[in-house]
């Protein structure tokens, strides 16, 4: 039983990393959103599985939050925003895909080397989980760094946050309060950034953050 539990947790966390790579690859906004929804769904499954094997029913709440808000509400909302802004055809390439993928692989290797060495004494499930979680966080940051469009930066930020939730649930005994506050902070961040997007739209007629720089008279 234990081995199976470990394998499934491993599979789900590894799947999350894989989906992060898919996010890195996607340069179309709708596709990116769909993959983010998938990311959140896999996260929900992973958290639910952790809840099951840790006998921690409160984690189901976290899983539900992840599923409802991150996999459904936010992607749908972002879809609508993209449609309203009329940027669904935008393709973005701040950094080309090949180097990005290579950098992502380097980051995953780094987090593996680091986490497996640092957490030598911890229980193997938590170790693997933390290593994957760090990979997801770093890949999320990479998405934010390599994108120019505000919407895809928001998506990168939220996938980063998924990595945090993965880490939080992987460690046994993390209180529920933290997850709820983290989930809500993400929601609030989304709202704030959403409002921000509309502000940008009103004034500059684009959501490309490069427009902000042009407004300030800066060159990229």
């Amino acid at each position, binding site marked *: 039983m234990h081995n199976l539990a470990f394998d499934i947790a491993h599979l789900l966390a590894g799947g999350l990393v894989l989906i992060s790579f898919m996010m890195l690859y996607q340069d179309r906004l709708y596709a990116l959103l769909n993959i983010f929804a998938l990311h959140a769904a896999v996260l929900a499954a992973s958290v639910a599985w952790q809840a099951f094997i840790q006998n921690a029913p409160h984690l189901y709440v976290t899983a539900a939050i992840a599923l409802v808000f991150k996999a459904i509400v936010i992607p749908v909302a972002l879809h609508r925003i993209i449609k309203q802004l009329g940027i669904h055809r935008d393709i973005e390439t701040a950094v080309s895909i090949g180097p990005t993928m290579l950098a992502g692989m380097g980051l995953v290797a*780094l987090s593996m*080397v680091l986490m497996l060495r640092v957490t030598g004494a911890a229980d193997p499930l938590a170790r693997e989980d933390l290593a994957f979680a760090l990979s997801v966080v770093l890949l999320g940051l990479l998405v934010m760094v390599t994108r120019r469009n505000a919407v895809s*930066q928001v998506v990168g930020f939220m996938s980063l946050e998924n990595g945090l939730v993965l880490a939080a649930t992987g460690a046994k005994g993390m209180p529920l309060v933290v997850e709820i506050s983290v989930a809500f902070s993400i929601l609030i961040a989304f709202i704030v950034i959403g409002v921000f997007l509309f502000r940008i739209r009103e004034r500059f007629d684009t959501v490309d953050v490069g427009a902000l720089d042009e407004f300030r008279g800066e060159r990229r």
Partner: protein
Amino acid sequence: MIPAVAQQIWCVAALLGTTALAIASSRSRRSTALVYGATFAISLVALAGALFSLIARTGATELTLPIGLPWLGSHFRLDALAAFFLVVVNLGAAAASLYGLGYGSHESTPQRILPFFPAFLAGMNLVVLADDAFTYLLCWEFMSLASWALVMAHHREPDNARAGYVYLVMASFGTLALLLAFGLLSGAGGGYGFAAIRSAQHTPSEAALVLALMLLGAGSKAGLVPLHVWLPLAHPAAPSHVSALMSGVMTKVAIYGFIRVVFDLLGPPSWSAGVVVLILGGATAVIGILYALMENDLKRLLAYSTIENIGVIFTSLGLALAFQANGFGLAAALAFTAALFHVLNHSFFKSLLFFGAGAVLTSTGERDMEKLGGLIHRMPLTSFVFLVGCVAISALPPFNGFVSEWLIFQAVLQSPDLPQWVLKIMVPAVGALLALAAALAAACFVKAFGITFLGRARSPAAEAAGEVDRYSLAAMFSLAALCFLAGILPGLVIDALSPVAQAMIGHRMPVQANDPWLSIVPIEESRSSYNGLLVFAFITAAASLAVYFIHRFASRAIRRGPAWGCGFADPTPAAQYSGASFVQPIRRVFGTLVFQAREHVDMPAPGDLRPARFKVDMHDLVWERLYTPLTEAVWFLADRLNQLQFLTIRRYLSLVFATLVTLLLVLAIWS
């Protein structure tokens, strides 16, 4: 009976309450009297408590308050060392409050001073009481900020804003050094309590680093050369009773921090530590007093003279370190006691002199000595106490300055017993520097008193001066009386200091109370002894006899001769001996080296009717060689980094990302 430390903490709480009171009553006209009255009463209570626990040797009492870091709390402890420095702090505070009762009524904007004054006193008390690194640093910063606010009280006057800025930068730098020092002391385990630090083992390299950081941190607050630059700017900028506190008391709190760490927490010292402290102290003493001599602003002169006295105190502490490292307990106790005695003395006479300068400032509105003069006729009482302060600070018997400097020289004379050749040569050399500084200090205060109070008035303001109010005079007279008492009864002070030396050094000076006729005997009777009372009696008798004989046989006798013009051939007061002319010989001897002083005579061509001009160029080498390049480097770097302000959002994210990945890489490679 509440423990002594709790009593002190209550006093601090009362001071903080007075701050609230000052804010609440800022609109009332009675606010000044109320606040200074309250601080006076509280300081007296705290002084009595500290004096009692110092003399009665009640032993250390501790108190932990549940404020501050949640897992740590705030620890306070009152031991002999803290009790002594509390005596210094609260005595100065009481005198300054009493002085403030009169001086404060001339204040144009009292609401800028009244709330910060009690807070400043509370900060100084708390620093001395703190018993863990966190509380210590917090209180230290509180004290610095409160004093900064007081420096900035008259922020519209020219140069005061700059003084405040330099002070703030130097204070932050000093606190950074202290922070690093305490970080090293508490080690990776994070034992922030002083008890934990005391029991921990420190490696020699760690101890050397902590000593260097303490010299930077405490030294910048105390005014060690070359960290002294803020002191002559900031101390005179504050109102005079605050200047007295900053110069007379706050520098002592810095010395307390140095003693607490180096003598108490760091464990047995190495003799090389003594060498470093000795050299710094000697250089500080001489350079400080040379600056003071060149100064014509009365309050700035006093601030520079503070630097000299800090140098003397540090020299004595360096001697104590050197002796202690070699196991000479008695000599170390002698040097240490001398340092503490000088701390006490300096707080007396420096406060007294700043009060005097404040009295001159209130009655004439002038700080420039070249515009004063002849005040002895208009302010006889102030002149008298200022003279007492000048005599005391010039280390002339029978006043207190002589006793402490004499004790320091007695310690210097023990140096031939030291085994290290470096110390054998260094200590007499530093002793010579101290002797030079003492002589220059005497010259400096002859100038300060002579130019300010003697001769004829050099400006209408000085001519119209009048005596100051009774509160100010009471404060000055009580400090003058203390200078006198400590000078003729030094044995009492030395015996009161013995528990401090016992706690810090492990030895004490011989008991002085049993010596006949109130003599003091630092080592043994066959080597040296001093009796202040006897010297006083001799001076009084000799002077009275001389006066009597001169009066009887010379001035009352009828003589015939040409009418004497009293030396005033030229009727304008500007033709009198001025401060600059008084120090010209000293400037020629030392100034060419220390200040790169150059004299130019601008002689008009024959037939040209303009007057000849005499000009002296002086350079402050510490500013020009050290601080100017430093500020230029900072400006250059700031200019380069300025571009970071104008990056794109993605670039900022990339910077964060790159930093994170680099740190992770470092972790992956190192661990």
